[in-house]
């Protein structure tokens, strides 16, 4: 740990770009994963989402009981 005059310009750049980068990368992943999901379901002709949602309407009351 050597003392060094802090280069605040660099510090802010690292901070901002680092935080921006993680948003960008995870956003790209989100889009990629969403596209793959859509493509596969279209390709396979299955719409699991609808099936799941109908299930869902039944189950919560049970969870409350």
């Amino acid at each position: 740990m050597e003392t060094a005059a802090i280069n605040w310009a660099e510090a802010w750049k690292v901070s901002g770009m680092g935080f921006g980068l993680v948003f960008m990368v995870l956003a790209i992943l989100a889009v990629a994963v969403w596209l793959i999901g859509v493509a596969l379901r279209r390709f396979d002709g299955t719409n699991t989402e609808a099936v799941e949602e109908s299930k869902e309407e039944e189950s919560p009351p049970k969870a409350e009981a």
Partner: protein
Amino acid sequence: MGDFFQTGFDQLTWGNVIMLVIGLAFIWLAIKKRWEPYELLPIGVGILLANLPGTGILLQPQQVAGDAMGSAGLLGTFIEYGLLRYTILPQLIFLGLGAMTDFGPLIANPKLFLLGAAAQVGIVVAFLGALALGHFGLADFGINEAAAIGIIGGADGPTTIYLTSQLAPELMGITAVAAYSYMAMVAFIQPPIIRMLTTKKERETYMQSQLREVSHRERILFPIVCILLVILLVPKSAPLVGMFMFGNLMRESGVVERLSKSAANSLINIVTIILMLCIGASMPGDEIMKPETLMVLGLGLVAFACGTAGGVLLGKVMKWISKEPFNPIIGAAGVSAVPMAARVAQHVGQKENPRNFLLMHAMGPNVAGVIGSAVVAGALLGYLS
């Protein structure tokens, strides 16, 4: 030739004594409070072994290289080869974690990736905070040390260990212990912050109780896509993301069951024993008993708090945009601390509305946060090393 009755008592420093007490405290927390016992129990023993004087167990191979008689110590050898020079151990942990992780909730709802990104703001705040302490002459953290301190806010043990070993090895024990300790304490750290930043109505929001089913193919494609995209975008994240996603691919492929079971069992267990002993052993009293240590701990707490806040605040934005009901609590799980932070979201949510079952929803940002911190670590490593 030494004297026969050369005990360790006379070499024992006050720093050692305090660290022995701390080591015992970690062992007590692990056993009695079940605070991350898989990490804190061996860490506690490592602290004891490192602070009992005269054992030679910490001698590193390079320290005895020219000495015909001398043998390196077990922990010194593992620290030098497993952590500092080859960083094998944290990467093997990530391999095992990948083989244990279910990305289903994130694949089912990929916009939750963004919560895992927002929670990384804690890393940034602690990074700037560490530099500010230097600015005001309170500590002499350079930019590398600031990065290692910031990554505590990633709330992932192996990521913290990996980045610290590369950028600021002298902080290795303390950042890792801070990360694991605060991970064990998320049930105390996060709820007040969540309540402070959300209205009761927001916290009561009922989210649909089931996620769509995720197909086998999506599960297989997920780790492959992550390897390709993340490593292309942030090359230095490969040691973490590559191993993590390789482990997950073995798990989800279903064709190498023996390999994925061994990665998630004997391999990760053996490596955990050795790595956590080494982490504990990286805290000899005389290097730890400094005001900087308290600052690192304080900054780590700030990082956890700000990460939680970041996740919750983006959650509020997403609730505002989203057409379906959306509970911002789950944003807090974006810090990772898998799976404790997701459980915190579940408990806080159910307390406000007994119908709420947020666990599965919170698992999405929870695992996204692991990828998020690895990305930040890779970016920092690419820039700073």
